[in-house]
């Protein structure tokens, strides 16, 4: 196998992502305090006071524990949303290229329409009628991420359809669906991995925005967006209570984006420097 230079961004982004993954797994077993535990004797503590490493909020809940619990939720939502979006996108793309040019046209135009709908706004609508929940957040975001992924998958699939190995499988009598899943899918796996990492980042960012607006996750479940919303409501945007969750989101999203872009450059050297 050809030796490839792994760019710095992959190492850098990868370590950040790994760090947050470990944190979220770690928080399943242990957080310094119960993130929902209200301790009225220790309200609004600062940095490192009384055993609270990052301090506490206005009713004495530990911030570090909140961040760890938030990591669990944000990482989980990011992964689930990205997984569903990638699966949906792939299915859309395979339906488009697999059946007939006519279906292709209809599916792609449908996805164009879907892309014109601002997902955040629709998430707001769904929250109005069904009440805010993790489930509604995940489903809305997936539906609106899928069209973009479908386009990428489709354009990666089409050149493969003319490759010899695909043609010979077809001539051997394999059905279109079988060929797509058995022969094409493994070859676009790298594309899917890149999309997964980029859209996990998008999902984390979008989820924090929704929770910040009050239509995402709310207590007793905690995401980073929930912490932001509480900080904004109680002490305003310019304190550690707000800056810590925001910084954590920034670093995690940056890490995932760097990882995704770097992986794309590694896996498809032709597109190095080509960002979309």
């Amino acid at each position, binding site marked *: 196998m050809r030796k490839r230079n792994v760019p710095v961004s992959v190492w850098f982004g990868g370590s950040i992502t790994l760090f947050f993954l470990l944190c979220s797994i770690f928080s399943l077993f242990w957080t310094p305090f119960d993130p929902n535990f209200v301790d009225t004797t220790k309200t609004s503590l600062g940095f490192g006071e009384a055993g609270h490493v990052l301090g506490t909020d206005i009713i004495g809940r530990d911030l570090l524990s909140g961040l760890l619990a938030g990591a669990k939720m944000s990482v989980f939502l990011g992964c689930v949303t990205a997984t569903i979006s990638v699966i949906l996108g792939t299915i859309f793309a395979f339906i488009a290229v697999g059946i007939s040019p006519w279906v292709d046209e209809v599916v792609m*135009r*449908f996805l*164009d*329409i879907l*892309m*014109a*709908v*601002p*997902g*955040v*706004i*629709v998430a*707001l*609508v*769904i*929250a*109005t*009628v*069904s009440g805010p929940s993790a489930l509604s957040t995940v489903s809305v975001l997936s539906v609106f991420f899928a069209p973009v992924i479908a386009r990428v998958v489709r354009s990666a699939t089409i050149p493969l359809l003319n490759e010899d190995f695909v043609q010979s499988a077809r001539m051997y009598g394999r059905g279109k669906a079988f060929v797509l899943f058995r022969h094409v899918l493994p070859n676009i796996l790298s594309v899917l991995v890149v999309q997964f990492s980029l859209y996990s*980042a998008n999902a984390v*960012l979008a989820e*924090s*925005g929704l929770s*910040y*607006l*009050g*239509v995402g996750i709310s207590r007793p479940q905690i995401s980073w967006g929930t912490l*932001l919303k509480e900080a*904004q409501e109680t002490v305003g*945007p*310019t304190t550690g209570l*707000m*800056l810590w969750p*925001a*910084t954590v*989101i*920034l670093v995690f*999203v*940056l890490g995932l*984006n*760097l990882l995704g*872009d770097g992986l794309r450059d590694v896996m498809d050297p032709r597109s190095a*420097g*080509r*960002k*979309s």
Partner: protein
Amino acid sequence: MIVFLVRRLGFFAVSVLATSGLIFVLVRMIGGSPASVLLGEFSTPEDVYALEEQLGLHRPMIVQYLSWLGQLLRGDFGISFYSGIQLSTLLKSALPVSISLSIGALTVGLTIGIPFGIISALRSFQGKGSLIDFVSQVGIAIPIFWSGALLSLFFGVSLGWFPTGGWVPWSDAPVTTFRHLVLPSVTLGIGIGSVLARFIRTAIVEVMRQDYIRTGRAFGMSVQKSLFVVGLRNAALPVVTVLGNIVSHLVGGTVLTETLFSMPGLSRMILGAVVGRDIFVVQNLVMILILYVLIVNLLVDISYYLLDKRLRI
């Protein structure tokens, strides 16, 4: 040209039908009867039935849908269930805020995005990475509420240059309005500029690989000249197409920015309606936003057609 316009307008009509259908079905299907949503948890079935009758919810679905569509087309956006005020009156005060913010953010985005994109492409053409690439990555990853909070803290609170929130209508004091607009526009513009810079860089790098550039260079054209005289004009085309996408993102970003800077725009209206569960107001406002994005996409496609002479053959 005519064929193109007819096809594109046809697609626009289909898009309007599809998205309005989607919104209509979403609002009807998910929360049960809109009447019980409006009346809240403690309503009696009789009240719900009476309100359903009043709102015409017992008519067939398709009739309800068509009459809603008809109202929208006539510009009749209905009445807010709670305040009883015509939605169009509310829109008249909210729209200028949102539109000003969008234009401001786009201006900031273009001012950041174009030069940075060009510089970054030039650097990559010389085989070097650049700090700008990293900065634009950070710009994309920054949550709006974070950059917004920092900007208000620094320019609003510490330096006191700009107000950190609120709004004054243009007609009252244009200068004050402008000052109110600066921080939100920059906040939203940073993200847009970062995305744009990366698109522009891609477009330029792609164009600079084309044969006509290589030919030009072989004839002794300098890198700079080939970029600024030939390259940019051709790189502009793919960038025009992403403007449509950016506007769609802009709508989502406006919600957060308006909330952060407490601006009385469309988003505040939507959020208010969401919190108050004023379901038909939400439905109409969302449809207005979608129409806005669809119209921008339509205009982008038409201008693309006018710009790219190859499409006219």
